[in-house]
């Protein structure tokens, strides 16, 4: 399959690297995932450094979903009530969803994009536990996994439009269309962008290989296997809009140590989590 776009891969990655990054506070909060000893105080300080983020997290914590009996007026109080991981996930989820919407790409369906990202996050978090991986890292990786699509839509709008046309006319997956038109897919672009933003390598690699094929599977980390399986399951369960279920590397599930029964039993809980997440994000 040869690319029909006359822009070099280096140039594409350079363009993508110029995309505005999310607020510093969000990147700092995501980086705390690497620090197993991150304290409540450290997290609270990072959230408080961004007044907009602080206000949004407090607003979310005070919604009926969390049923907080009294009004929560500080991040320290929120962490005490709901736990450090829940507050970190809330801050990341909100910051990432906001960042996506602020980018202003034309011809880009933000709602579907956020719904799909939320769906993959829910599957990844649910399957992370039996796969003995960190559910919070899995959740954030899920939220960010398709960021390469957004980067391509913003930095190469005309080519991305041709990618969407190609997918429609050839009845293929988005990544096949990207490779045919641009010569690089959104997973590689997203992985590069995450490295450019100095996010944890576990997340960068997972995003870069979430559309893995069997021939590169030997290089894939457990987190990229998890994201790959989560992507397929999110499409199969139609969490967000789904046109077709993509290819899945057959060996990814046994590599994660998951059984078919564990997958089947997780469906109901994943769907409940997904509904809850959309409620929290105010998406209906």
């Amino acid at each position, binding site marked *: 399959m040869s690319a029909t776009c006359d822009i070099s891969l280096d140039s594409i990655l350079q363009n993508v690297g110029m995309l505005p990054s999310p607020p510093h506070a969000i990147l700092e909060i995501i980086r705390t995932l690497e620090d197993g000893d991150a304290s409540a105080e450290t997290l609270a300080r990072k959230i408080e450094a961004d007044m907009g983020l602080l206000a949004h997290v407090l607003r979310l914590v005070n919604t*009926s979903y969390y049923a907080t009996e009294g009004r929560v007026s500080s991040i320290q109080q929120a962490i005490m009530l709901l736990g450090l991981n829940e507050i970190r996930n809330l801050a990341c989820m909100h910051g990432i969803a906001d960042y996506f919407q602020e980018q202003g790409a034309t011809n880009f369906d933000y709602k579907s994009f956020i719904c799909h990202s939320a769906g993959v996050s829910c599957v990844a978090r649910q399957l992370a536990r039996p796969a003995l991986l960190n559910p919070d890292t899995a959740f954030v990786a899920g939220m960010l996994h398709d960021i390469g699509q957004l980067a391509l839509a913003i930095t190469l709008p005309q080519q991305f439009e041709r990618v969407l046309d190609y997918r429609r006319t050839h009845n293929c997956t988005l990544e096949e269309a990207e490779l045919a038109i641009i010569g690089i897919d959104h997973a590689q672009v997203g992985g590069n962008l995450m490295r450019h933003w100095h996010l944890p390598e576990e997340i960068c690699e997972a995003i870069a290989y979430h559309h893995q094929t069997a021939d590169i599977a030997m290089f894939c980390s457990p987190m990229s296997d998890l994201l790959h399986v989560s992507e397929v399951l999110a499409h199969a369960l139609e969490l967000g809009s789904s046109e077709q279920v993509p290819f899945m590397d057959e060996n990814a*599930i046994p590599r994660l140590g998951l059984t078919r029964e564990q*997958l089947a039993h997780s469906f109901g809980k994943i769907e409940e989590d997904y509904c809850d997440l959309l409620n929290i994000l105010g998406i209906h």
Partner: protein
Amino acid sequence: MVLQRDVVDARGRILLRTGVALTEQTIASLQRREIGHICIAVADQRNEDELAKERRQTVAHLNELFRNVRREGYMGALYHMVMKHRLKDMAL
């Protein structure tokens, strides 16, 4: 009206258990605690013809969704697991 999912507070404490019949008093109590939504069990009123039609539509929809993958090995298993999950509430 019967609860289909436990209602819990932010600390995970169960306020009302699945299966509890909701009264005006319990609904008012949930409102006072600002519980915005709950899941209730609704009696299935679909007849056999309607269920059969929904099953056919579900099967056709999933076949379309899985159209470009070979239904063998784990993909085949996934197809059948999702089908079973989707059809579980449409038993004749």
